[in-house]
């Protein structure tokens, strides 16, 4: 059990006096991020839905990045990864990240290939 908590987030930009205070601070941050996500999802600004980066809408990139940010703070502060030993943290974090990236890569490429097969009319599926 890690009794001595590291009490700063944003690389030392925000420092807290106690662990309880840090928890509330992280909650406020996560709520702000969620609010931004929901607001963007409802408004859907045109300049974000009509510009693309690597074949995906800018808005979707923002959603995914904000999700990863949220995941980071849940894992680091709520699941106490910040207080664990560095090797344990690395094993827990990098193993799934590596496997998931690989899975995303192969499956999405394959899906895009099938999409093109359908689209180029080798198979009739919308009749």
């Amino acid at each position, binding site marked *: 059990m890690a009794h001595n908590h590291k009490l700063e987030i944003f690389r030392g930009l925000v420092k807290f006096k106690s662990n309880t205070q840090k928890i509330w601070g992280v*909650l406020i941050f996560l709520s702000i991020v969620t609010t931004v996500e929901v607001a963007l999802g*409802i408004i859907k600004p045109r300049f974000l839905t009509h510009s693309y980066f690597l074949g995906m809408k800018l808005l979707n990139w923002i959603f995914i990045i904000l*999700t990863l940010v949220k995941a980071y703070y849940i894992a680091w502060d*709520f699941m106490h990864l910040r207080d664990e030993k560095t090797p*344990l943290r690395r094993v827990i974090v990098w193993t799934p990240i590596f496997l998931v990236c690989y899975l*995303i890569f192969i499956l999405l490429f394959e*899906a895009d290939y099938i999409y093109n097969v359908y689209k180029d009319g080798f198979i009739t599926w919308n009749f």
Partner: protein
Amino acid sequence: MDATVSTGTEDSVWGGGNKPLGASYGKMMMWFFIMSDALTFSGFLVAYGFSRFKFIELWPIADEVFTHVPFFHGNYPMYYVAFMTFVLIMSSVTMVLAVDAGHKMKQKSVILYMFLTIIGGAIFVGSQAWEWATFIKGDYGALETNSGRILQFVDAETGERAALADFAKTIPDERERHVESEGIWFYGEGSMPSYSLNEVVEGFKATPNILIRTEQLNEEGEKTLLDRKESLSKILEANQVVEGANLIHNEYGHRLFADFFFFITGFHGFHVFSGVVINVIIFFNVILGTYERRGHYEMVEKVGLYWHFVDLVWVFVFTFFYLV
């Protein structure tokens, strides 16, 4: 525990006295489980991405599917899921406060925070059940074509979606629902839609201001609206009426969307449910003073890890089902 055999070597490195990476056995095993479970969820979500990329140009728009808030009428996309997300994050916070109170050996605070966590989990599971019920019941109703594509209806004047009830004719005495008691070989059939295909098609022909909307997304990322002439020829392809969503038919669009929705949110909901059950067990242990006697509240920390993991998964489900 009395049943544990003491060998007198527990404190030596090879006797189990060593804590690798500073984490106790129980915590380490919880992390093992969480990692494998994370990979399971990733598999599901990536499979969802696979199907979505395969049918990228006709995938349903989540904002048009989940538009309801309990006790309110009207079109409120996103608000309810945002509320659910907030409830889950909040219960994560009370859980982490319980762990913190456990470190300080404050039994009363642990009880309070565990209780709040359980309430939060229950609200979330209840909300999800409501979300499922609304999704299964359906909104407007639609037609399904021979190839399984969905045709929805739009009022040409207002641009709003039109429900089947708005224009379908009532043609009396068409078909009776089969019941098991009426046949020797017959196994019964599921519920029939409120209107038959013929009633919908006749009603559509008689109502000139109703247009058909196909699943196809246009350049604006919106569903394609056919004009009246195209609509009249398109409706001939329909072969059945669909109301609501299940694993085979889905009035909101591609059936895979419904399949993945049920599967992924169902699997997540089951995790939340089991998390609540485990939390309740630990809650009673705290009340009974089990951990007070044991001298530490590590058990609360372990269920806390699981509970936060459930929250973590929801953050991703929320993004990929409702936002992206």
